């Protein structure tokens, strides 16, 4: 059973660069920081790569991003994805979660797939509802917080272990289905150097709004259902205290500090 898998990947500001800046419109200035594939999406991609290694098949990565999006998509291709679809349109700027889900659903509808995988949330947005909203738009089974994904070859369905407060739930659904992936699925691999050299030869298709049959006026900041009122920085961290010395003394000192703050 060869699997067709679509992995939703979002370019986000590189957390390691620590260069996030808020622009004059109060939104994240995406030009100020180098972009990387959202961390949780890389775990989803890793899960997809393992599934394809085990069952055969192909992986398409799907992003909605500014024109520079393919730069981060190349990394996904170098990790082993087979092709990319890049949804980009100037009219999309300022789109809210509702619009994002609608546009990605329209793009996903064009593709043939057994499984669509996405990270549970993105490090720049943290809404965590886009995958569920896409599933709702397309009427797909939605399996959240996946810790394990097992396609059932005979039944044509998929079993997912969903993390829960008490352990995990075992869910089953027919395919195609949409799965939100957690880091429990396993560390993403490094892109292969041969894969990097070959990534340019892989196809990245570009889709505009009109390609997806969506009108310009139906997306973007103007139709957003939420409005950004204000942004503020998190309170400054208190001074760091570095504890040196033996592990034993260090542990004692840490416990003392925590006890002083009534944390233990």
């Amino acid at each position, binding site marked *: 059973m060869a699997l067709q898998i679509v992995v939703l990947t979002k370019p986000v500001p590189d957390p390691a660069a620590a260069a996030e800046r808020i622009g004059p419109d109060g939104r994240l200035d995406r030009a100020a920081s180098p972009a990387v594939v959202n961390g949780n999406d890389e775990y989803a991609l890793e899960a997809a790569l393992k599934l394809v290694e085990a069952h055969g098949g192909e992986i398409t990565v799907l992003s909605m991003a500014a024109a520079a999006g393919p*730069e981060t998509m190349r*990394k996904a291709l170098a990790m082993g994805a087979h092709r990319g679809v890049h949804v980009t349109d100037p009219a999309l700027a300022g789109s809210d979660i509702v619009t994002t889900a609608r546009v990605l659903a329209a793009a996903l509808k064009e593709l043939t797939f057994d499984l669509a995988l996405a990270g549970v949330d993105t490090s720049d947005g943290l809404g965590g509802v886009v995958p569920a909203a896409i599933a709702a738009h397309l009427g797909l089974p939605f399996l959240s917080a996946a810790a394990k994904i097992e396609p059932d070859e005979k039944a044509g369905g998929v079993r997912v272990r969903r993390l829960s407060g008490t352990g995990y739930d075992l869910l089953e659904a027919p395919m195609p289905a949409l799965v939100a992936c957690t880091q429990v699925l396993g560390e993403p691999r*490094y*892109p292969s*150097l041969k894969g990097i*050299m070959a990534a340019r030869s892989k196809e990245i298709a570009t889709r505009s709004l009109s390609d997806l049959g969506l009108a310009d006026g139906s997306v973007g900041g103007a139709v957003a259902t939420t409005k950004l009122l204000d942004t503020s920085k998190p309170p400054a961290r208190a001074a760091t205290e570095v504890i040196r010395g033996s592990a034993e003394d260090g542990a004692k000192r840490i416990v003392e500090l925590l006890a002083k703050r009534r944390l233990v």
Partner: protein
Amino acid sequence: MTGPAWTPYRLTEEQVLLRDTIHQLATERIAPRAAEIDRSAEFPRDIQAVLAEHDVLALPFPEDFGGVGADLLTVCVAIEQIARACATSSLILAVQALGADALMRSGTPEQKQRWLPDLVTGKKLIAFALTEPEAGSDAASLRLRAVRDGDDYVLNGIKRFITHGSVAGLITVFALTDPEAKRGRRLSCFIVEVPTEGFKVTRLEHKMGIRGSPTAELAFDDVRVPAANLIGAEGDGFDLALKTFEHSRPGIAAQAVGIAQGALDFAAGYARERKQFGQRIGDFQMVGAMLADMDAGIEAARALTYHACAEIEAGTADAARWASLCKLVAGDTAMRVTTDAVQVLGGYGYIDEFPVERMMRDAKITQLYEGTQQVQRLVIARALLGKGR
């Protein structure tokens, strides 16, 4: 300005992704081992395995043999990123490229088929054996003798300061085949498979830096090498060695840039965190100025190194000069920057709890090997004076 076109470089999308990937690999898998590798002075077989597993050691080799087929600039970008974390580890790639250069350049298809696959996968390492006790900078005056005997050559003599000489499975050996020939035609190049009868590692040096990288003295006592292992023709050895340096010196320049960048990154981080007199020490102008000068020096050395790679890759007739220019500037930059990094950390820079003293010791070798800085200046001056060799 007159003269040939100035070859521009700009890292491609692939080179940027490769740089970032090796940066991550080096940060996560190599940097945590660097202090222990230095302390134990043991060759890190585990790091060799990491580099092999991720195709880093396959970078310089042609795709026909399973390699990545990366150009010189790409290989140098990789060496730089590894050196940023651990200079010893960066030598595993640099010496693999150095040792295999003659084979890739002048080996027959049969010779390549015989040896390259094991080098590409990192199963075997290859060393480069030119230097001898009495022949360092003056490479044409080698004494290790190779005498033809039937289908073999018989090798007798000593090689000294051979990086990876005790851990490599293949050694590219330069030997004297015709003492009567003119200076540039006396040497020949052989691939020696070790261990083999009559070959012995007689000594390992205790070094100031790159301590995990074994530097061996090798004794050849009637070592029989099949004539099929001769690379190129008899007498090609000296030219092959010089051509190799055109590719390997930029690698050492890249290593120097990487060591310097590692030291600056650590020093800048320290200057952000460390407080004295109620403020971050980086905010003191004297410390801030040191950091700024370190940054400027590194970027200049990096730009020259990358540009030299582009010139050499483009086939400039002036390759030897470019190779020496970048090694000279980058080596001196690494020494200055790492020394300043120790200064920024003050007393903490002088103790092995922090990595900058190791980086300072590692930096020194980049001014010495693959031709001392004095030899680089000689090469450059000769090119300027138009005397050639």
